[in-house]
């Protein structure tokens, strides 16, 4: 087992950031902690790193109880959202930091840093200072710095949060390849469900200091266990008691048994997909997602009356 978190509770004053949280992370896996801000995901990561001390519970890393071990002795690599670059050191100095602290021989440090510079593709920037790098480059440097000490686990706190969309995408791909190469147990925090789905083998969804569900991206999407997971991992709409994904709404032009009558309020074509805003006959609005090809076939227009089928809707037991 890579990391085991058992019954961890963490309070800040009267605010409970983590409430009896347990989580297993497989050796060598890539796990995402997904949740909205304030859900406790970053706190959980910091508890694993030892940067926060839990009020209750245990953290085990590679089979050893790490709960009362200082961060510097846990063998974790930590990457911060805002890079936490050592501003007065060059890229080389930053990456070498952990090795110098460990008093490794100079030749070894040099060789290892060169290797990491190649891994994160920063060789041409080795002698620059962080202020001379772009955000994406700084984050790659921070990753190399964390990997230099060969951590047992790599922890990333919203690693792409401060980057623009295009660089995010690139860095995400790159992290995926890196993980395939290095295979270190990795946990990253994100509030972006797409990022979590694209990268992780396993996702833990957090909400109000609790873990709502843990599973593969596919499990979470196809078998959500709570309305929160259903609406946070992919979009979902509520129809009375039932929850349904917008792309599972089926629009009929004829009255159909079990369908809800609705009026088309607005149609938005977004390229491949289209969104149809509907005013339900009872009350409330909902939007349906379909391909533009489907929209063309239906020949829908604003003001038209349709019947909405929601066969694949889910009903959740009263929230636990």
């Amino acid at each position, binding site marked *: 087992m890579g990391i085991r978190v058992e019954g961890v509770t963490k309070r800040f004053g009267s605010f409970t950031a983590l409430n009896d949280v347990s989580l297993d992370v497989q050796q060598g896996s890539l796990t995402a902690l997904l949740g909205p801000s304030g859900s406790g995901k970053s706190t959980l990561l910091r508890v694993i*790193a*030892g*940067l926060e001390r839990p009020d209750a519970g245990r953290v085990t890393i590679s089979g050893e109880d790490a709960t009362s071990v*200082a*961060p*510097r*002795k*846990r063998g*974790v*690599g*930590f990457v*911060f959202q*805002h*890079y*936490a*670059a*050592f*501003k*007065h050191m060059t890229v080389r100095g930053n990456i070498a*930091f*952990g090795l110098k*602290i*460990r008093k490794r021989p100079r030749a070894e440090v040099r060789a290892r840093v060169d290797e990491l510079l190649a891994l994160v593709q920063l060789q041409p920037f080795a002698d620059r*200072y962080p*202020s*001379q790098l772009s955000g994406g480059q700084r984050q790659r440097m*921070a990753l190399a*710095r*964390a990997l*230099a*000490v060969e951590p047992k686990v790599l922890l990333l706190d919203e690693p792409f949060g401060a980057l623009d969309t295009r660089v995010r995408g690139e860095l995400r791909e790159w992290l995926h390849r890196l993980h395939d190469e290095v295979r270190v147990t990795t946990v990253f925090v994100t509030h972006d469900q797409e990022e979590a789905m694209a990268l992780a083998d396993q996702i833990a969804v957090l909400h109000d200091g609790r873990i709502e569900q843990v599973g593969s991206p596919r499990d979470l999407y196809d078998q959500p266990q709570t309305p929160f997971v259903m609406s946070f991992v992919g979009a979902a709409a509520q129809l009375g008691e039932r929850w349904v994904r917008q792309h599972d709404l089926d629009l009929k032009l004829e009255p159909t048994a079990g369908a809800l009558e609705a009026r088309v309020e607005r149609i938005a074509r977004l390229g491949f997909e289209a969104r149809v805003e509907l005013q339900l006959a009872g009350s409330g609005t909902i939007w349906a997602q379909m391909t533009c090809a489907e929209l063309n076939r239906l020949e829908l227009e604003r003001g038209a009356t349709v019947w909405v089928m929601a066969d694949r809707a889910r009903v959740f037991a009263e929230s636990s």
Partner: protein
Amino acid sequence: MRRLTLRTVALGYLALILLGPLSVVFWRAFEKGFGPAWNAVTTPEALHAFQLTLVIAAIAVPANTIFGVLCALLIVRHPFPGKGLLNALVDLPLALSPVVVGFALFLLYGRTGWFGSWLSGHGIQVLFALPSMILATAFVSIPFVVREVVPVLREIGTDQEQAAETLGASQWQTFRRVTFPAIRWAVAYGVVLTTARSLGEYGAVSVVSGRLAGQTETATLYVSDRYENFDIVGAYAASVVLALMAIVVLLTMNLLRPKEGVH
């Protein structure tokens, strides 16, 4: 137009308050030529006074630098119940007249004072001697390093320190390799201000030193002593030396500072 007015007002004020008096000092010192001025500041008493001022600064400044950095770390990084009080206390020397400080030390270390009776019983002379002068100087120059370092520590945040920690650095290694390099300019500026304040201290030292010429007379006390004895050239010439010391300290700072822009 408005900018011109602003400039005139600012520079005019500076000239009136700062440059005017300073020019007079230089003017009067060298009124009778360089020779008399030189002779006035190379008498044994004068040399002793300058030396004493430097010795006091050489002890008070490092002590206040170490205390100032520790105090700033305590205030910013390790919140504790009495933090607000400490924060306010640090500023006290700025608000309190140095003469009051001098009298407080006088009462504490005088022959009948709380510490004074015990210390003199053990043959340690504090008052009218170097120790009390160092205490007085350290007291009045406490705030500068703390006040320079606190905002910078706040600004750099804890990310870099935590990163160092996860990379295996101990508290001391983190301070030496990460925190200190980030605050070194604030520390340097604090040291400059502390030094300048120490060199110029008059009120508190005047009370505790006893002002014995050639023994417990610092440069500022020497200036005052010369003036009271109608040795105008001596007073002004010594003032020039003090002013030059201050200028050298400030220039050193400014010469060092541009290196910051490199990275």
